[in-house]
């Protein structure tokens, strides 16, 4: 047990508590809903969270550095729309090229954010509130209020969500979910094992120390925004694939869902702790709640009220579980870093009597 206490911190097994909550929710829903445990439900939830998950991975990186990117919804809409228009006008385009363009477009928008935050020293919330409006505005102005229609898109694009990636027996897993999973795995391993990636955590948990140690603060923050933009661009492509019909309003409000996923997933909004995996679990938690509540027969008009309550309970129980774990761990030998990393959910790092 002491071995465990020395090697692993409570924050690192926070994902476990979230996973437990998700399983509990699924079991509860399953007992009320017939036919809940099926691949259809799985795919339903998986597809709806796939896009949010990919964007949330990028958002996690940004939040780790003590910033935030509120413009992701506009980036998703922007890339979905323009890549969609591009494909509609050039039906023969190479699919991989289209994906690359989407990612590059998102990255370019992320560059703008990153430059202004890192070198302009403008707070991220200010910049991204501004670019949220500006990117959306440019989209509407340049698009001439047309809609990208599925009719104009090539079959490989519109048929993509239907493809069964694992035609083994009864397994039915769809591509969008696989993409999200791959991204999560890549970034989870990256942030855990790449020493370069640990810099994101360092900057967020203790900026002064990071500066003293000589970390290239500006470069790292810039990189976080570029990656976030790139992933939002990928999310935009996935959006195009999933919905086909893209209006200039695409992605509006997405940033809210992404931040909710990140927050529920235990990524500390003050930076320095939280994982990509946690963000994904946060997205899954919210997605499960959303998808299942309707099946439960809860009236359309009760859904949001119940959802708000459940998100609150999820965050609260997560914080409580974490506190219990910390109490369990206890001991001076684990007070590794100053206030920053251990702030968990904010204030309660001050010792409670």
């Amino acid at each position, binding site marked *: 047990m002491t071995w465990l206490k020395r090697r692993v911190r409570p924050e690192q097994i926070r994902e476990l508590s979230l996973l437990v909550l998700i399983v509990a929710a699924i079991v509860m829903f399953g007992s009320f809903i017939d*036919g809940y445990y099926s691949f*259809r*439900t799985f795919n*339903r939830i998986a597809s*709806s969270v796939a896009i949010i998950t990919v964007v949330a991975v990028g958002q996690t990186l940004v939040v780790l550095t003590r910033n935030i990117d509120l413009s992701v919804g506009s980036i998703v809409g922007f890339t979905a729309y323009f890549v969609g228009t591009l494909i509609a006008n050039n039906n023969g385009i190479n699919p991989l090229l289209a994906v690359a363009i989407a990612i590059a477009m998102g990255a370019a928008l992320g560059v703008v954010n990153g430059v202004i935050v890192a070198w302009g020293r403008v707070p991220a919330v200010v910049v991204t509130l501004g670019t949220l409006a500006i990117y959306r505005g440019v989209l*509407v102005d340049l698009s001439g*209020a*047309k*809609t990208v*229609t*599925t*009719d104009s898109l090539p079959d490989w694009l*519109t048929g993509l*969500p*239907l493809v069964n990636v694992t035609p083994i027996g009864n397994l039915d897993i769809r591509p969008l979910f696989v993409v999200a999973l791959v991204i999560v795995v890549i970034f989870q391993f990256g942030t855990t094992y790449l020493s370069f990636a640990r810099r994101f955590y360092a900057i967020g948990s203790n900026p002064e120390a990071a500066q003293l140690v000589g970390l290239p603060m500006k470069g790292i923050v810039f990189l976080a925004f570029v990656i976030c933009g790139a992933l939002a661009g990928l999310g935009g492509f996935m959006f195009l694939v*999933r*919905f*086909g*019909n*893209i*209006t*200039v*309003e*695409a992605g*509006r*409000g997405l940033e809210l869902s992404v931040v909710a996923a990140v927050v529920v997933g235990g990524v500390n909004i003050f930076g320095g702790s939280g994982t990509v995996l946690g963000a994904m679990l946060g997205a899954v938690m919210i997605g499960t709640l959303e*998808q299942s509540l*309707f*099946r439960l*027969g809860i009236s*359309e*008009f009760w859904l949001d009220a119940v959802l708000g309550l459940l998100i609150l309970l999820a965050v609260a129980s997560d914080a409580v579980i974490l506190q219990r774990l910390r109490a369990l761990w206890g001991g001076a030998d684990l007070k590794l870093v100053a206030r920053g990393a251990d702030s968990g959910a904010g204030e309660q790092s001050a010792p409670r009597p």
Partner: protein
Amino acid sequence: MRKLLMGAAALALLAALPQHARAQDAMATPGKAVSMVLLPKFLGILPFDQAHKGAEEAAKELKNQTPLQFLGPTPQNSVAGQIEIVTNATTQGVKAIMISNNSGDQIVPAAKAAQAKGIKVVTWDSPIPSSEGEDVFVAQVDFSDIGKVMADMTLDLTGPGGGKFAILSASPDAANQNAWIAAMKTALKDPKYAKLNLVDTVYGNDESEKSYTQAQALVDKYPDLKVIMAPTSVGIVAAAKALQDEKLCDKVKISGLGLPSELLAYTKNGCSPEFALWSFVDLGYLTYYTAYLLATDAMKAEEGAKFKAGRMGEFTITKDPTRAKGLRVLMGPFTVYNKDNVEAGAK
């Protein structure tokens, strides 16, 4: 004697003439400078662009010296934005405001203020429910008829055996959709539709994403659902894609109100074999003519007023039977689209 008789006959004829003239249509005098505003629910979707096209066509015909202002809010700020635009237009002293009302009765104070300043307020596509602050409503079709058409299309798609169906609407506060759904529910009382069973009404808020997931949720919750009726151009397309992605187009059909150009693929592949719409271009054209005539005092907004609207012919202002109060100009028929005429309609 003859002269007297001729005189009397002429007099009698003259006496008869004004009567005939009173029944004559109001004609627009082209070439005036009338500042008008066309205000859709929000900017960014095709139906409203088409209405704009129609209005511009009318503007050209009428040789209005002042160009038409096409202003609209963003979708998420639709209500506050419409109120703001009406208020600003009142400040600028325009002659007429043509609004597709997304703000329910919340636009009434602003609309009344506009009327107080002598501005003509003409609604189109979606009226002011209480009709206060509104001079006349240019209705694309009769709202009760929409209910019947939707019920008919549902019966067509379920087949004579009937079955379960659901409604996927736009925003829960959209006046026109709510009126159409109410009309449909009334129409369904007819024994002809006895076998149709409306199981649920959900809202997609005119957002592709929400409409898509709502459609999916519907087929999850009601496995033996046969038809989804979506009287919203954004919702119907998203729902069709959702069903296509679920490979359910054989079991569940989509219908409702949608644009042929957007539904082309789905009609051809059978997901949405039948749907209906009217011409938004014509609606914009007619609305412009109505507003121009009112603004130039060529006619008054009162019951019985007749007028000629360019290429569309003759129209009469009548009482609006679908609302407690209010006047309307009824445009015209639907077109029901299926695989035979959808390509032509998509042009």
